[in-house]
């Protein structure tokens, strides 16, 4: 009695059967494992995962989304300027804070809200992973995530300008194009448009264009060095503004990501760090800060025990 048996996933069933059948005569002598490994692989592209560990690179977003059913709670802090002197304990006396929630509606679509102490701003965003980097047949070289955010400044003003709701709003549109070159190195490019309904001077542009670049280099399995830079297109660059530069260090544990960084931007939403950065990174206008993210599974994948 000669009965070789085979068990396989639905997708590979047909190919493996043929593969195994063609060589049945030699089956008894050959190494079975080698036979299995020679079987053609399923012709589906394999997604590249974990391009970045955090949902934020440093100030700005990464291409990552939390995944279906996952709620991420983000706490971000930036202390005051390092060069503000001993009286302010080198900036630690003046923290700004942002609290945010982001929820993965699907693996690709995320909705988020946040509140910053700076400008008492509320922000909301939609983030969609349009393309996903993959390997194998019909491989996609990059991951592309689209982001649309709006921010509402709710400060009370004493000037005589009428602050209507539209005047308090700012919109940001961003495309993030990222590639994971190796398990350690990922690079991301972010063309960005910030539209401000109200600007300080008549000569200032309402639309500010910026090109961001950033990336991570892993140092160990769970730590990485991150860089982020937003170059403002000179023709639309508002007066007295500087490009945002940030250097960070990520520590990843089970359900948390801790991100420590220094940056010349004090704000943590696009509108603030792209169009309101005035600090000079190299003259000590540095804000030390951290982001902390905690993920909660709100809706687990189906078919698993609770």
């Amino acid at each position, binding site marked *: *009695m*000669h*009965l*070789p*048996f*085979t*068990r*396989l*996933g*639905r*997708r*590979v069933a047909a190919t*493996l*059967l043929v593969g*195994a*059948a*063609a060589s*049945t*005569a030699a*089956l*008894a002598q050959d*190494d*079975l*494992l080698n*036979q*299995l*490994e020679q*079987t053609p692989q*399923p012709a589906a592209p*394999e997604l590249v*995962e*974990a391009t970045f560990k955090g949902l934020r690179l440093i100030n700005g977003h990464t291409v990552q989304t*939390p*995944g*279906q*059913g*996952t709620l991420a709670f983000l706490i971000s802090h930036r202390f005051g300027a390092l060069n503000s002197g001993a009286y302010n304990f080198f900036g630690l006396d003046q923290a700004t804070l942002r609290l945010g929630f982001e929820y*993965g509606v699907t*693996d690709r679509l995320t909705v988020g809200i946040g509140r910053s102490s700076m400008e008492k701003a509320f922000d909301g965003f939609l983030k969609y992973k349009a393309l996903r980097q993959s390997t194998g047949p019909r491989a996609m070289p990059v991951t592309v995530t689209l982001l649309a955010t709006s921010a509402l400044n709710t400060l009370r003003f004493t000037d005589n300008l009428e602050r209507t709701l539209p005047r308090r709003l700012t919109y940001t549109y961003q495309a993030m194009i990222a590639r994971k070159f190796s*398990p350690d190195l990922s690079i991301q490019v972010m063309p960005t448009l910030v539209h401000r309904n109200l600007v300080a001077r008549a000569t200032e542009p309402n639309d500010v264009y910026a090109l961001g670049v950033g990336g991570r280099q892993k140092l160990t*399995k*769970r730590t990485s060095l991150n860089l982020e830079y937003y170059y403002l297109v000179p023709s639309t660059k508002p007066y007295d503004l500087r490009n945002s530069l940030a250097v960070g260090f990520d520590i*990843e*544990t*089970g*359900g948390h990501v801790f991100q420590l960084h220094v940056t010349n931007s004090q704000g943590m939403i696009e509108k603030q760090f792209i169009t309101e950065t005035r600090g000079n990174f190299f003259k000590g206008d540095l804000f030390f800060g951290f982001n902390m993210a905690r*993920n909660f*599974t709100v809706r*687990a*994948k189906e078919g*698993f*025990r609770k």
Partner: protein
Amino acid sequence: MSFFSTSILEDIEARSEQSAALIDLQSGQVAFVIPIKSFQFKRTLMQEHFNENYMESEKYPKATFKGQLHNLDRDALAKGQSQQVQVEGDLFIHGVTKRVQVQGALELQKGNLLVHAFFSVAPADYGIEIPLLVRENIARIVSIKLVASCESVSQISAAKP
């Protein structure tokens, strides 16, 4: 194929339906290949950690097993009785090969071979590091359950191209 890890803090469970296997009842040889990335977890984040931090599935995309069936009674199997068998062989996970012995059951039903096995694996044996911070979340010994139904690859089908 599925595995469980139970600890005080959390239960981790994952399943894969993409494993491939060949069992040769004549020579008693057994072979399994499981793509690591095919394991599905309850939580997206667990799946990501599993692939990136623990199994390094970009570096080690597959787990394999190559073994030999012991004490197989072919006649009893042909009669449709469930057979307790022992398999001894090399389990390859995360770049490390270890010799293991696995208890299992075989049963022939309507031309299909049903395979059941339940065994344990210690991540530490395969060079899978678990950082101190999450050591309480992950069991030292992970249980593995294997349920497979194998189709016969007969001589007749071999004749067809």
